[in-house]
């Protein structure tokens, strides 16, 4: 069974339909990239997968659990699903170490020393051991985003949702975060990635889904999508991103 199963999901904000009947699957160890213009529903889809947004129709199943709006069930589900946001959303009143330790201590009930060891280990792996006691606002955007990824990884999730995590970064900082994403993919982490980084989608993804006004209008292997797109809108979108030099 697939790790994530999305079936006929419809999501509306008031009168606007943001997701209009989405079906898709993510297998274990697979990297799936969601591409498409801003406002096509990529972020909303990710937020529906871990229940941060309630859906109006359809079902989402993650790691064998149905996503329903019930706090206890959602909290349990979210232990297995890490999410990283475009704006990092680190907790500004906690040090880097405390940011990474919070959820393991409060949700997984690890002891403080255990959580600290785990956090330091993860920070060391991304070369940020010396920043453990800094506050987030004193770090660069790239560093903050890498800490945000580590914060999610500290929960040892089965699935990572990455919501345009390089979009808010200065161009010279994008690479350090992309490298970390590639490394994660190589370690076999299952990931759903909403992104504008077409290079990453082409080289790393196992599957690419192109979203347009709330529907997946084309999906498949990146080689196929990027070289011989069948849908007119896909080729137009790719041509435009190519022109703006994002590939």
């Amino acid at each position: 069974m697939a790790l994530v199963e999305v079936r006929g999901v419809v999501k509306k904000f008031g009168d606007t339909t943001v997701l209009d009947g989405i079906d898709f699957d993510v297998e274990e160890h697979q990297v799936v990239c969601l591409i498409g213009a801003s406002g096509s529903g990529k972020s909303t889809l990710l937020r529906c997968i871990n229940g941060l947004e309630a859906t109006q129709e359809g079902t989402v199943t993650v790691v064998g659990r149905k996503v329903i709006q019930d706090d206890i069930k959602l909290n349990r589900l979210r232990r297995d699903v890490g999410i990283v946001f475009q704006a990092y959303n680190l907790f500004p009143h906690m040090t880097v170490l405390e940011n990474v330790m919070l959820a393991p201590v409060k949700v997984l009930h690890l002891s403080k020393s255990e959580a600290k060891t785990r956090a330091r280990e993860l920070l060391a792996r991304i070369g940020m051991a010396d920043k453990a006691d800094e506050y987030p606002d004193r770090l660069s955007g790239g560093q903050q985003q890498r800490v945000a990824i580590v914060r999610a990884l500290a929960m040892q999730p089965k699935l990572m949702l990455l919501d345009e995590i390089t979009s808010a970064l200065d161009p010279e900082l994008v690479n350090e975060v992309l490298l970390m994403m590639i490394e994660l993919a190589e370690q076999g982490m299952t990931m759903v990635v909403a992104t504008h980084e077409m290079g990453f989608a082409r080289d790393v993804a196992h599957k690419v889904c192109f979203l347009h006004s709330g529907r997946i209008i084309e999906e498949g292997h990146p080689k196929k999508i990027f070289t011989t797109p069948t849908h007119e809108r896909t080729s137009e979108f790719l041509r435009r991103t190519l022109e703006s030099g994002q590939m």
Partner: protein
Amino acid sequence: MTTGVDGGPGREAGPLNHGIKERSNQDRARSLRAHGLSISVVALVVLGTIFSIFAALGSEFNFIGWFCLALPLGMLALIYARRAEERVVDVDGPAADEQRSRQARRLAVTGITLASIYTFVLLVWSSWSGFVDVANTFFSWENISSSFPLVLEGFKLNIAVFIVAEFCVLIWALVIVVMRQLPGRAAAPLRWLAIIYVDVFRGLPAIVTIYLVVFGLPLTDLPIISDIENVNFVVWGIQIDQLFILGVIALTLVYGAYVAEVYRSGIESVHWSQSAAARGLGLSEGQTLRHVVMPQAVRRVIPPLMNDFIGLQKDTALLNVAGVLEGFNVARIYAGNNFNLSSVMGLGICFLVITIPMTRLTDYLVKRDQNRMQANS
């Protein structure tokens, strides 16, 4: 007095068409400066002299009248001077402008200082006997010093009430604000209760609440209230009795409503993405509030919280309506017996000695906290 208004021969002549514009600017600046100066002179010297003559003749033309005439003229003079300065800035190079504006500023500061001193001296001179009365009524050293030990004894009670009530308010307001934030339909009655409480106790005058609580509650047969009737013990020289406890309850009810609203504004100022991140990590609603939202909210509302605590500290004096022998009551009685208000001034100084350093300390702590967390600040 015409410092630097004319550009002088040292000024580089620009292209011809600019030269004309600069010339007219300069003339305009000079005339504006002259206007400003002449009006200042009228305001400060002429009116002052007229006033002095009137005062010397013992007329009723008093300070207020002089002030009303001088103030608008003085402001007009300042506006003209400022405009003149702006014109001058257009004319010459940066270095000359810099020096000129420094001169203008110095001139303005000197002028304003001299005018203030002049006004003050005139005021004191013309109403010397009044000042002696003021000094005797409010600042009689003899009165302050003889009443001070008693007042201070009473003021200790104000401090005690304040400390206990502040502690209660912080907790009680937190209970109210959490009640108000409870999610779900089941919690609706609790939310409504919290809203009604805040509306009522924020709307009632503090003195009314105190009166009703202190005199009303003992008349009821409520279980806990009738138990505290016999409370009577002394901690650090402060007598804790029924009156003390009722006073704390009343102040907690009043200030709990204010502080709950302060907390709420803090909670609402924390961006929802912070909650999203916390919930995304699997933290429950309560854990998110406790570990992520509240710590940030409280940091942000420390200045308004401080406001309410200074208010609370001052309002401990309202307990005198209930006959509590706190500082104000003591000072008031002393003042009544001696036909002199200096004892109350002594109490006022006691309050200031506590509140002002407290405000400065909080400002310092907030600043330090911010420096720790933010880059380049």
